[in-house]
């Protein structure tokens, strides 16, 4: 058989109209196919249509020949027998997809028993876990696994039914960039010459690493397709070009400023313990006006706590933080990872900003200037935060911080929930503001490429030995 999936004119309709325009695609053995797109581009819906798992209210169109059998995608009732046996699905955020009350080994073994009908299912499960390096975690519950381990467990459980075609839906979502290569290796490792791999992702680095064929999706349409290596090196469609350029590894290095002015905030021998675990110890920092300092580390390493400790939001267990005593405390500000959660949910943004303006006597003209500077439409202020996009909301949060004339800004993963192009816009804006306002910026991220190109100075936090290393 030369083709695993041959899909013709696959489309998805919602109650308000078409969400995915007709797409035809072919999945060949040994050649991975990756669909790249931003949030809302319809890439996951396309994959769900091919599996027959669209949510209620959505309707698939078109047909597909899967593993030599024809299916009408608009009537997906009989596609269920493909699950686990022909198509293995690695779900989004696998730590939520594992039964929280079942131990790791059993989650794999039950598939060997009940789907593959093997009598020695337990032994097979042990072998599977061994392969992905989880042998010692066999008796653990999903809550006791790290994100990467949960990913590998879900992978083993999904494949235990003997499927040859692998689907992966946003496999890097919610994971540190450092884990990306491991996931790509996991996915292509089992591909061989016979298997199939269809991946949906927003992550261009993952797509590059997986290789094979690439499709770029924008607003429900495929705008460009071709071999991954060629497409990512020389994109022809304008959108693909912007997408590739927005990748942090392709950014130009920011013109650094070697600030020689006195630090607005300094830390000596900083140490924080939370829940009985020492997050870091002996961290020294000097944050000067106009300078950008990055903190790099994996999730859970305490990088957010470090920034919070500087702002006095987290108690110190050692060392001290010194600020210029002549500067009022509200001029030390913060940007949050999840912009909607940083605003009062029940009132309009304008009302919140007006209250702030009254509190600190910010005049109308300054607010208008800031709106214009951050390229924000005044219309946005009439809405509650839930009705504003993440990128705009993060810029509004920046505006809110700028209203109180800050000297220091702690940005806690400010773009990790944003799409690539929006991320670049927000980061560029942040860089301009730092230069113009001469404020000291501390930015935390798990994306080394981003920090390396954006910051004057990067501190690496390593959870295991609890120390910080300054580089650059």
């Amino acid at each position, binding site marked *: 058989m030369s083709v695993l999936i041959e899909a013709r004119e696959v489309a998805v309709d919602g109650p308000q109209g078409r969400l995915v325009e007709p797409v035809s695609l072919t999945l060949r053995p040994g050649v991975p196919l990756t669909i790249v797109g931003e949030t809302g581009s319809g890439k996951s819906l396309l994959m769900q249509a091919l*599996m027959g*798992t669209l949510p209620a209210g959505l309707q698939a169109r078109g047909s597909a020949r899967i593993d030599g059998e024809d299916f009408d995608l608009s009537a997906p009732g009989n596609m*269920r027998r493909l*699950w*686990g*046996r022909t198509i293995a*699905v690695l*779900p*989004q*955020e*696998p730590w*939520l*997809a*594992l*039964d*929280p*009350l*079942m131990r790791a080994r059993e989650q794999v073994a*039950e*598939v060997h028993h*009940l*789907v593959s009908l093997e009598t020695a299912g337990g032994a097979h499960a042990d072998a599977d876990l061994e392969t992905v390096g989880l042998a010692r975690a066999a008796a653990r*519950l999903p*809550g006791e696994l790290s994100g990467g381990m949960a990913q590998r467990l*879900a992978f083993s*459980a*999904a494949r*235990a*039914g003997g*499927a040859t075609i692998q689907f992966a839906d946003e496999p890097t979502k919610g994971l540190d960039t450092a884990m990306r290569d491991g996931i790509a290796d996991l996915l292509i490792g089992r591909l061989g010459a016979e298997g199939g791999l269809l991946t949906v992702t927003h992550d261009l680095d993952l797509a590059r690493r997986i290789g094979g064929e690439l499709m770029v999706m924008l607003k429900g349409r495929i705008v460009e397709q071709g071999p991954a290596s060629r497409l990512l090196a020389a994109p022809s469609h304008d959108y693909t070009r912007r997408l590739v350029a927005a990748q942090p590894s392709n950014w130009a290095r920011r013109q650094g400023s070697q600030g020689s002015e006195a630090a607005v905030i300094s830390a000596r021998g900083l140490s924080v313990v939370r829940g009985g675990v020492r997050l870091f110890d002996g961290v020294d920092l000097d944050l000067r006006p106009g300078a950008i300092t990055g903190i790099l580390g994996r999730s859970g390493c305490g990088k957010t706590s470090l920034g919070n400790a500087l702002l006095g939001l987290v108690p110190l267990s050692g060392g001290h933080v010194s600020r210029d005593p002549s500067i009022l405390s509200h001029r030390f500000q913060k940007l949050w990872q999840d912009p909607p959660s940083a605003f009062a949910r029940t009132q309009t943004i304008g009302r919140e900003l007006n209250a702030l303006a009254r509190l600190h006597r910010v005049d109308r003209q300054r607010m208008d200037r800031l709106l214009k500077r951050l390229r924000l439409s005044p219309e946005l202020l009439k809405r509650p935060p839930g009705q504003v996009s993440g990128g705009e909301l993060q810029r509004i949060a920046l505006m809110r911080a700028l209203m109180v004339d800050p000297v220091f800004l702690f940005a806690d993963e400010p773009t990790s929930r944003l799409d690539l192009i929006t991320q670049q816009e927000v980061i560029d804006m942040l860089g301009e503001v730092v230069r113009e306002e001469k404020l000291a910026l501390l930015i935390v991220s798990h994306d080394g490429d981003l920090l390396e190109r954006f910051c004057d100075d990067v501190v690496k936090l390593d959870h295991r030995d609890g120390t910080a290393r300054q580089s650059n």
Partner: protein
Amino acid sequence: MSSLARILGFRLAQAGVVGVIVGIATFVMMRALPGDLAFRIAAGRYGYDNTTAEAAAQVRDELGLDQGPLLAFLDWIGDIARFDLGRSLVSGETVWSEITHQLGASLQLAGAAVLLAMLIGLPVGIWCGLRAGSTADRLLILISSAARAMPQFLLGLVLIVIFAVQLRLLPAAGHGDVKHLVLPALTLALGLAAALARITREATHGVAQSSYYEFARWKGLSDRQVFFRHGLRNITPPVLTYLGLQFVLLAEGVVVVETIFGWPGIGHALIHAIFHRDVPMVQGTALVMGLGFVLINTLVDLAITRIDPRGDGRSSNRAGIEHG
């Protein structure tokens, strides 16, 4: 095992505080009654018939009642701590023997009601939870909302009028035969069944909507396998927690239903004791109800830690259940 120690420690402290609260309430009640305090306490110890002026004087002396209310209160609490509940002011029997006598009848009634409620509520709740939005599901939501608005005494009234007075199928009051049990148990069970069905429906619906339920199907398991291997296990803890908390409502229901149907249990005894200002009996029944709650919920906690070994499972389940 630290979670075990934590559960037992918490429940032990809870039992202690329940004892103190009941002690305070009954002590104030004792003091608020008109008449001679020492005489009443003596009567509480030895029964009214055996109480003489000398006995009262002895009590006054022994307890140092003249020393003020604080010491008297500490003594009162001390009696509770030693499980020395005294004697009924009405019958003269010890409170313990009265209560052990009545508790059997109450447990029979409550047990039958809970069993009935589970037999109705659990399957209906699971059935509707797996078919959220269906006609059966909407009917369940409607019925359970109406049942919540139906006080037990009204339900009992309706059942008596229909089955005892009109149809003459079952007796309206009495004790001893199975036919006497039917109406009170049904009265108690119907409201409980409706609430249990609703909570089971919410828990089942939540689990059926979860990513892990979906992933289990993607792994290739059949609906049946997914439900029995991943559904039941995750539905049980919140439902058990709910059942444990329902003990208070059950106790309240027992009081009302026993009084209406003349069922000789501790609820009936409590109303009698209140009526006759029999403080030791009120205290005894209050302690049995409060400590019964603690005991049932300890067992629920222990059962849940077996099903859900995560340390934080209990607290999150509890928080989620309050307004189901």
